[in-house]
């Protein structure tokens, strides 16, 4: 995802000289080509995220599209007030780009696990939040973001992530969900890089004769409520998955809609139960420990269907 983002950005910067990238002293490898090609438009703000985001708002006021790049919680939690007041309230054309949504930096410890960012960013009025599920989705949402005016949040995974889509995503329109697999017994709704696990779960369920639909939501806010509303009528049970706390994020958004729609469809949220991560391990290991790998999702879906 990270590399797909950098590729699209480089191309767009080539065509639009008003795009500027500010990094919080991170992304050396990823941004190297951009640094080489557009040295005047890559600014290192130092390890100073709060002022970095204020600066981005000020820079955007001079008619620029300003990306702020950092990892994990650093571009989100630390400068949250600057995002809210300086960027979103002023409708500043600032794009907060976070590499490392969820457990990407697994072994580095809880400081580096971004597991509340979706809930917090989603609560800010008027912001656009992208949660692409794989590199192909990253390409289309990055392009969309760079053309969309106003403050956006892009939650990426890492580099070298497996592709879920067979090729480029064609004909995507903002903020639509993307159905990756048809199914009739249960729907698995996924936001972000956990999509690989949702697909794996569907595969496992198929082996047991359970037909699961898998839908990716590359846009968390605004949410494709039309698709969800259709699913709430079409299915009796829906599962949401996110590499994130189950509180306030994607699953919560679906539940809000389910409660208000009142079709009787039940929703089960899969994600990090209200806790901090305390064990050490890589991304996939942590998904297993906290019950959101493909196997766990399949087991939970099966049990849920029996309820």
């Amino acid at each position, binding site marked *: 995802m990270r590399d797909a983002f950098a590729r699209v950005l480089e191309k767009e910067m080539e065509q639009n000289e008003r795009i*500027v990238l500010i990094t919080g002293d991170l992304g050396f490898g990823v941004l190297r080509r951009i640094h080489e090609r557009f040295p*005047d438009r890559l*600014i290192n*703000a*130092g390890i*100073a995220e*709060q*002022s*970095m*985001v*204020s*600066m*981005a*708002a*000020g*820079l*955007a*006021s*001079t*008619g*620029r599209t*300003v990306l702020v790049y950092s990892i994990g919680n650093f571009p989100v939690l630390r400068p949250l*007030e*600057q995002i809210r*007041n*300086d960027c979103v*309230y*002023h409708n500043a054309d600032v794009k907060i780009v976070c590499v490392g949504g969820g457990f990407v930096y697994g072994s580095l410890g809880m400081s580096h696990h971004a597991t509340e960012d979706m809930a917090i960013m989603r609560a800010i009025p008027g912001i656009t939040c992208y949660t692409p599920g794989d590199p192909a989705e990253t390409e289309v949402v990055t392009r969309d973001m760079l053309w969309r005016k106003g403050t956006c949040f892009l939650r990426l995974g890492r580099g070298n992530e497996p592709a879920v889509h067979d090729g480029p995503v064609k004909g995507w329109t903002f903020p639509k969900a993307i159905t990756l697999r048809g199914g009739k017994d249960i729907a698995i709704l996924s936001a972000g890089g956990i999509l690989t696990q949702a697909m794996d779960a569907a595969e496992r369920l198929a082996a047991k004769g359970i037909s699961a639909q898998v839908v990716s939501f590359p846009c968390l806010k605004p949410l494709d409520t039309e698709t969800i509303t259709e699913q709430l009528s079409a299915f009796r049970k829906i599962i949401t998955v996110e590499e994130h706390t189950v509180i306030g994020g994607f699953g919560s958004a679906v539940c809000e809609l389910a409660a208000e729609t009142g079709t009787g469809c039940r929703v089960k949220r899969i994600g990090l139960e209200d806790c901090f991560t305390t064990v050490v391990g890589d991304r996939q290991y942590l998904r297993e420990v906290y019950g959101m790998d493909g196997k766990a999702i399949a087991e939970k879906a099966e049990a849920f269907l029996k309820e």
Partner: protein
Amino acid sequence: MESYEALVHSGFEGKPDVRDPKTLAWLIRRNGLEMTHISRGSHIGSVLSVAEIIAVLYSSVLNVDPKEPKKPDRDRLILSKGHAGSAVYAALAETGFFPVEQLKTHYANGSILSGHVSHKGVPGVEVSTGALGHGLGIGVGMALGAKMDGARWRTYVVLGDGECDEGSVWEAILQAAQYRLDRLIAVVDYNHMQSLTTVEDTLKLEPFEQKWKDFGWNAESVNGHDTDALLAAFGRAKENAGSRKPYVILAHTVKGKGISFMENNILWHYRTPQGEEYDAALKELEAQRP
């Protein structure tokens, strides 16, 4: 009933000369008193301390045009200490950005003039503030954008001294020096008081001028109530362009300046002037009319 404008302008023959810094400073105090009186609002002490700084900027320093508030080559002013918003509102209204009459709606239900300065619907306000420690960073971004465009307009940021407790201010101080923003001018309303007590008893800033210099800025200290001294300082700050260093003016002020019982009295950070106190304050201001 007498209009608000007639009330605050009473005693002037014709329209007050807002190009005169002393007159504009007096009008900021007069409006600040009236606005906090009508609204039962707070922060009169900060408005009184920053009055000359804002008056000198709007009367004599800033290249801004009330007829074209968004003209591209305008100077940008950010009031980072947003709680002194009524000083900026008063200066903008008195210099023609919006009707003086509108100042009476400060704090009121349905008004656009919030207690902390807001840009929404208010001509001439660049940035909404209120949370401290944001303005200098935004100013760094603006000045950086101007520099990238080769533009000649300047960015002015007015900070409070208490605000300099915020780490984000020091982040921005480092960044401004790093990017050599010599058209960025910071002014600190150094009134030595913050919300609960003095700056010295909270988080000491001294040696303050030296700190800015050590961080790569050109810095000077002036009497922040002496309009001539401020004018001269802003002149030097303008000439600073080309030095490859940002410029800061530490304006030594008195919180509550101009109203004896409010001066250096922490009570008047939040207290609203009512009853006898309002009358006494008005009487003192009348005696200082330029």
